[in-house]
């Protein structure tokens, strides 16, 4: 090699080849399931990048119905439940607050026309000081919060997912994956990702983690506003203006977690009262169902430390209910014959006080060994 131009030509050639190999592998393997090739059967990395995956996957889902909420909905609500339209997508995202849920609904509504929205809520989603998680990006959503189109949204993840070392490493990890198939069918988290909680040690450790982190949920932020309650109002308006039927339900968390949520007297009642008030103000036709309570399902006993494997029927751990419970929720919401009597009830402004009395009554008279009095 005698000349500088030959040197540079060789440099450009090697750069193009190496860059092309990386881009080709990342596009071909598509570890996050956003470029739509069908080359691999399992994409375990989606679990850590659900926000990115779902923002792109919903664009192809042509969904008539959306399931929204946090990880409880991702794990528990089956988009293929017989009560739901054929094209239902589980757009719930892990640790999502109401603002993120609003933004993903706006995104989905800009791409398809959902006629049914089922939203799972709990007080934690309304925490005043909560911020979007680090993997949330406004830029990858099809519209801004005030409804202006963002035409370049689909391109924002091109470079990070095609021309990046982290994507290349994730492609290699995807190809090397020998575990169970991870596919996120229509947005629902694969059960295989929850199987570690069949080990009692892991389950009890997770319970302790939740208990140690439990704190009073404040709806107001440090400026005296309640941003998540405001976002909830926006979400209600967005569903109404899009003509989507909205069904809201409280996640049927385990009774021990419900106890922690109701730790501060009146806080849970205040939260639900504000939810009902927002519905009345913004979208009175929306339904609210309460699945929280103290019953055979939510009071299911946890395994003891001497049982190596969990045989729990309804819960993975204290926070996440199994699909079997999610099915009962959907059965109740759609008045199917399979619905379990007494599990879930409609709540309106008129029945709110009665519902609180019911909770207190159930708590006081609970006969379930899992819950201490």
């Amino acid at each position: 090699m005698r000349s500088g131009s030959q040197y540079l030509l060789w440099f450009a050639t090697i750069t193009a080849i190496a860059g092309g190999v990386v881009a080709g592998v990342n596009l071909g393997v598509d570890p996050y399931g956003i470029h739509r090739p069908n080359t691999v059967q399992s994409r375990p990395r989606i679990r850590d990048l659900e926000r990115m995956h779902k923002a792109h996957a919903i664009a192809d889902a042509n969904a008539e119905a959306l399931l929204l909420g946090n990880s409880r909905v991702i794990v528990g609500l089956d988009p293929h439940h017989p009560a739901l339209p054929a094209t239902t997508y589980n757009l719930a995202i892990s640790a999502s607050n109401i603002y993120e849920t609003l933004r993903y609904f706006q995104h989905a509504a800009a791409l398809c026309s959902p006629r049914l929205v089922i939203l799972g809520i709990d007080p934690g989603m309304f925490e005043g000081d909560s911020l979007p998680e680090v993997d949330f990006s406004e830029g990858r959503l099809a519209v801004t919060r005030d409804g202006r189109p963002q035409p370049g949204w689909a391109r924002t993840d091109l470079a990070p997912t095609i021309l990046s070392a982290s994507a290349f490493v994730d492609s290699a990890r995807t190809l090397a994956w020998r575990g169970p198939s991870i596919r996120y069918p229509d947005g629902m988290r694969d059960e295989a990702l929850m199987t570690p909680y069949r080990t009692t040690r892991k389950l009890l450790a997770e319970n302790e983690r939740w208990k140690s982190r439990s704190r009073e949920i404040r709806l107001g932020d440090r400026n005296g506003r309640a941003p998540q309650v405001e976002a909830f109002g926006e979400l209600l308006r967005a569903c109404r203006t899009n003509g989507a039927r909205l069904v809201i339900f409280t996640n049927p968390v385990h009774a021990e977690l419900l106890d922690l949520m109701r730790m501060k007297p009146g806080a849970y009642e205040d939260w639900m009262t504000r939810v009902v008030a927002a519905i009345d103000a913004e979208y009175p036709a929306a339904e609210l169902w309460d699945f929280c309570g103290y019953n055979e399902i939510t009071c299911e006993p946890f395994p003891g430390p001497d049982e190596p494997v969990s045989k729990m029927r309804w819960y993975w751990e204290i926070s996440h209910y199994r699909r079997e419970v999610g099915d009962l929720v959907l059965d109740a919401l759609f008045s199917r014959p399979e619905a379990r009597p007494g599990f879930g009830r409609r709540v309106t402004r008129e029945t709110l006080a009665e519902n609180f009395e019911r909770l207190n009554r159930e708590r006081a008279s609970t006969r379930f060994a899992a819950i201490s009095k």
Partner: protein
Amino acid sequence: MAPVVENLGWKFAPLPCSPTDVAFLIVALLVALLAPNTEEIFRLAQRARASEVAPPLWRLSRGWSTACALTFVVALLHLTGVTEFLYFQF
């Protein structure tokens, strides 16, 4: 040694990184200490003095072009990346 050090109030804890990270750090340290630096590769200062100098390590060759191109691609691939969900935040 451990009891003596602990008596001084120090505590032993697991390394906040994986064995792979430690291996990578060791390799990086060896590169930093033993590999020629930019000045040694190009000998720019010595050439400017126009004195009797050893030829530069770098020359117009396919090997050097390939090495530089691959370094460039690796740097390019680290300009961006995906951001993962952090489970400890909730």
